[in-house]
């Protein structure tokens, strides 16, 4: 679009006409649901997901700095803004909605609510996904390990203390559940 309007403004005939980028088919799964999409190659995975309606993946900085768009790709936490949508071909994506639903909240989500670890809520989806990976890899983290585990997720409201408390409590709950299961 920019190219076409520029040529109108400047009246330069040498400017090539705008050709919309070719769309590529992309198939992957989100929270266990198969998704078939089409997007130009330059579309970031963040934009692709949000355009498909997965708006729980938040757009914060688009530079990998804030962690609001954190998702799991084949189980590994990553910034959705730092991959091309086409790179997700055939992959399994989990967003915060795949970790727990309103009717069936994950213990991390329960503790976030109990501890008041949510204020404006913008960082929460990414924060919970990052916490999920942390607790999957380190079931009984120290407070320092929790801080390090969410180091890539910014929160401008809480000052982090309640988030760290909530993750600590979720870890306790999850490991006591596991103990009972055995």
């Amino acid at each position, binding site marked *: 679009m920019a190219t076409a309007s520029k040529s109108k403004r400047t009246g330069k005939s040498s400017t090539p006409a705008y050709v919309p980028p070719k769309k590529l088919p992309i198939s992957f799964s989100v929270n266990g649901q198969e998704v078939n999409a089409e997007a130009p190659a330059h579309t*970031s995975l963040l934009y692709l997901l949000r355009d498909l309606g997965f708006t729980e993946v938040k757009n914060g900085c688009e530079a990998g700095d804030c962690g609001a768009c954190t998702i799991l790709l084949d189980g590994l936490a990553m910034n959705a803004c730092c991959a091309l949508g086409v790179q997700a071909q055939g992959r399994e994506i989990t967003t915060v909605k795949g970790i727990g639903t309103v009717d069936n909240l994950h213990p991390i989500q329960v503790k976030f609510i109990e501890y008041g670890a949510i204020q404006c809520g913008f960082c929460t989806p990414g924060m919970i996904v990052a916490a999920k990976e942390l607790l999957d890899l380190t079931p009984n983290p120290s407070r320092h390990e929790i801080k390090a585990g969410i180091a890539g997720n910014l929160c401008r409201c809480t000052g982090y203390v309640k988030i760290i408390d909530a993750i600590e409590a979720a870890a306790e709950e999850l490991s006591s559940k596991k103990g009972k299961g055995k």
Partner: protein
Amino acid sequence: MRGFDFVAPTTLAATLKAAKGRSTKFIAGGTNFLPDLRHQHDGPAKLVIDLMRVSALQGISSSKGQIKLGALATMTDLLTNKIILREAPILAAMSEKFAGPIIRNRATVAGNIIDGGPAADAVPPLLALKTKVRLASEKGRRTVDLDKFLTGYRQTAIRSNELVTAVTFPSPGRNHKWGYYKLARRNAMAITVVGVAVVLKVRRKKVEEAGISLGSVTAAPIRCYEAEKILEGNVVDLELAQKAAEACAAVAAPIDDIRASAEYRKLMCEVLPRRLICQALDISQDND
């Protein structure tokens, strides 16, 4: 933004063939690629090739005393890989300070080198380990010393349509001494003010071989050859460590920026190498 074609080959041969004769840019973890893309109105290239599915570029291995990091080895791999933890723990120590855990899951060592930034955190430890960069294009393969590969501010010796396939370095041996320090304004997600890496091979109390390098204080991270020479062949004491540290500061040419002044950086280029050398060799420092 102008669009581009995209392919995701699974073999190195198919990758090089796809890149042949076309304006190409490679993508792996994307942690530099995507943020950069937002400022490129003409697009990065006509064709973007995804390397993430090329199995030949994966993995960390060790053979005949050489450690090889495939181009797709991530920072998270450095933190968890047994070969690295045993043979080159300095890389794990660096990775722990690199960005944050989510970036580390995707960011590759090769990508950090290719980006060519002065504050590329993986580079000082790799320079101290005397790393070589393996490159491939449809014209053939070549190997370049990492310090020759970095040619200036965000400039490397990479040719068009050439890609890094791996980096290799000799294992410094299980009894080597090392130190790494990232001086930054925060503990995570921070751009380095001064990065220092020290790798020392010690035999009968003598430093046999030294690798010392600095990041963020020159256009590209730099090896401190003079400082290395001062230590090599000697039983190092505080005085010699100080001399080596002064030699480090002598090659530093830092700039003032939002994170720190040039003056402070220059001073830290003496303090930090001395501290790391002394800590690595168990030399007591009374004036620190």
